[in-house]
């Protein structure tokens, strides 16, 4: 079983230097955990992120035959969003416009590396 408080503490570590919110969700759009200033719209953010992932995953499967979709990075008008697959869940991070893509990727990778093993342990077979 996952410890929700510890999970939130881990996600919170990413929320510095322009990073506004970090969410962990399942591909169906249910929010598992989040940390940061989400303005009480974290459920909507999770649902939209899952929808974007699922819309692209199918076509990515034929494009990237070996691995499938691993990463989505979006450079939007008011900020940047990254969605990354971790075990059978999705890690979604959104940042202010000032954050560089390199830093965004580095932090998401660090989080994903840390969460991969614990989330695999509880992943349903």
């Amino acid at each position, binding site marked *: 079983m*996952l*410890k929700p408080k510890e999970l939130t*503490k*881990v996600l919170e*570590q990413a929320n510095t230097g322009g990073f506004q919110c970090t969410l962990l969700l399942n591909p169906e759009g249910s929010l598992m955990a989040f940390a940061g200033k989400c303005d009480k719209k974290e*459920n909507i953010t999770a649902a939209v992120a*899952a929808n974007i992932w699922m*819309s692209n995953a199918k076509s990515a499967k034929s494009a990237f035959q070996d691995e499938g979709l691993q990463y989505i990075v979006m450079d939007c008008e008011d900020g940047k969003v990254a969605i990354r697959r971790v075990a059978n869940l999705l890690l979604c991070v959104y940042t202010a416009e000032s954050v560089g893509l390199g830093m965004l990727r580095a*932090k998401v990778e660090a989080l994903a590396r840390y*969460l991969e093993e614990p989330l695999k342990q509880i992943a349903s077979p």
Partner: protein
Amino acid sequence: MVYSPPLDRCSFSYLTPSRMSDSSKTDEESALNRVLQKTANDVIDVTYIEPHSMENAEVSGRTREYRSQVASLRGVSRPVAKLPPNNQPPAVMLSKELVSPADVRFVTDRSEATAAAVESMEVKHGEPLVVQFAAP
């Protein structure tokens, strides 16, 4: 003339059991409707729309077109690397002083330090995330 007593707290004895069940039924129905309304407002539908599925003829047509475009690009020779645009003639530019070895070393060191800093980015380890239940 018919006297009808005022309805107040003392007048509940006038409510028959059937009337009480009606009012409680109404309350239950309104509570249920409120719950249903709230659920309908809170539900977020994440079913995604299937991407537009193309007909086979269209797919094969587009495949042919893309292959021909890629083949036409392969024949194009790459432009030769040119010097960056500058008002000064190339001879003057090339005869200028070279970048000092100290500057080159500084840039190299900073690049390596930046790469190492990015590599060392990691999550601070706290308590374990997964709790194992002891098997009986």
